[in-house]
């Protein structure tokens, strides 16, 4: 009986070890950082999270006098959109839609963010449109775009706020 308990405790310890090793692997897919990417000529390289919020709320509409901000956002269901709505807008999907209708209705913005259906399209538009800004899964960032630091941190660095 004692031998059985010894064996059982070893198996239990081994299981715990496996669990500890595998859990980060399982969670890894859901913790990929979301990069804030802009057109390479955009005259910023670091924004605070509240500045990012200001840009995506349409309260800051120009990077500089001649470069307007062009907002790109993924279509519903994409993880990038979920992260943006949760962390940046702090709104539900319906609140987000109502926010932009009201914003345009108040004459505070002429257009709502453009919706893109994939990170590839987002990357291509970012490289093509001066002033464009989008959220892209950090794994999908392509050459030709510029990744902004948020609160001084790049995706993958400890304390990066968008994940």
């Amino acid at each position: 009986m004692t031998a059985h308990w010894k064996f059982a405790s070893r198996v239990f310890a081994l299981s715990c070890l496996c669990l500890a090793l595998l859990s980060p692997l399982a969670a890894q897919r859901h913790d990929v950082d979301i990069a804030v990417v802009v057109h390479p000529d955009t005259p910023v390289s670091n924004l605070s999270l509240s500045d990012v919020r200001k840009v995506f709320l349409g309260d800051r509409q120009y990077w500089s006098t001649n470069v307007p901000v062009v907002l790109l956002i993924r279509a519903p269901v994409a993880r990038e959109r979920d992260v943006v709505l949760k962390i940046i807008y702090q709104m539900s999907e319906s609140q987000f839609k109502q926010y932009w209708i009201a914003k345009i209705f108040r004459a505070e913005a002429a257009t709502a963010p453009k919706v893109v259906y994939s990170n590839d399209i987002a990357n291509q538009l970012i490289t093509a449109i001066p002033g464009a800004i989008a959220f892209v899964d950090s794994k999908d960032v392509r050459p030709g775009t510029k990744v902004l630091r948020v609160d001084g941190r790049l995706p993958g660095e400890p304390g990066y706020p968008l994940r």
Partner: protein
Amino acid sequence: MGSRWLLLLLFTLTTSALLAQSPPQSQSPPPAAPGEPSVQSLLDRIQQLENRINQLEERDRQREAAQASIAAPPSPAETPAAPAAAIPAPTPGPAAMHGEDHVSMGEIRDTERRFPSLQIRGFGDVDFSATDQKGSISGFNLGQLVLHLASPLSEKVSYFGEVSFTAQPNAYDLSVERTIIRYDYNDYFKLSFGKYHTPIGYWNATFHHGAWLQTTIARPEMVQFGGTFIPVHFVGLQAEGNIPSGGLGLGYNVGVGNGRSSFLSKAGDSGDSNDNRAWVANVYARPSRFYGLQVGASVYRDKLTPQPGQNFGEWITAADLVWAKEKPEFLAEYANVHHRDEATANTWDSQAFYVQLAYRLPWWQSKWKPYYRFEYIHKPEDDPTLLNVLDLSGSTLGVRYDITNYAAFKGEYRNTRHGVDQPRVNGAFFQTSFTF
């Protein structure tokens, strides 16, 4: 011995279950040797290449379609090519089509914005009311049908318009509520000309005519359309923008215009009633540390000429405190209206405020939003200008139910007293409001 095998089996099953919980991509890749690409990175690369092939195929298809269209020009009803099938593209439902521009693969190479690009949005509402006031008639009525137009004319010039149709006993009253052309120099300076909702306080410059936009059925009486407590509309020019202030998030509006017409509820659309211009200044703060908070203060100055030879100086000061979120939503606004008879130097001060609290309930898909508002107006009885304004003390208790993202149903109970020593009136009000 059998129990050992049983434990081993248990261990195997536990490990398998753990592996099964992780996504398929993380099951197979063994750790890569240093200097060699991992299986995961190779899979990602394959995915990229597949996407690239899809894009190239799509371009070929579009090129062929373009060549075909040279031979036979497309009719205006034809739609652009759909995104490549292999690219995961959620079908844009009616909800996704509102308020957002959609970019397809075909538009990537055609990124130049088109001007003008007119967008039209409509708002409407249908109401029912019943009160215990003597002589009142209960029943349905159509609220305002509002059309909103927005059109960028260039990267820096935009037009905004708002027209309303209001049911009258024998006709519909068509009114231009706002018409604004604006030039954006940058975030700190935007200059516009036209007819605005006067930026006094929060409500008047935020909710405008679409009842769907506001939580409650009706506006507070101090900013009611057709009312005279504050000038709801303003014709002239306005500068607005952000003030460099770091995390304080300061912004401003400054305007010069005609002010009130001889009908004090109307703006001077067709010209001023005197040679004196009105001006308005509004400053607000949206601190970045308290996302949702807005604090503002406004000043308005005008000279009223309700009848030839009668002139009154008008000073309006207002302040507002807003928590513009839904859990909770809090709006509070105060205004003092000061009038001075230029002939006799008599002065009158009238005050009004409201406090509104609402909360979006987290249950039932967050569709329910109960609210309460208290509002108050006091006006000296002998003020000769605000003849249509009555003292008010009233409470509104209601709930908003969002039927869809673009339509809401609201029900309210109101208990109000208008005038001095008048009985309180109880009323039930219902509204369905929507945007389209």
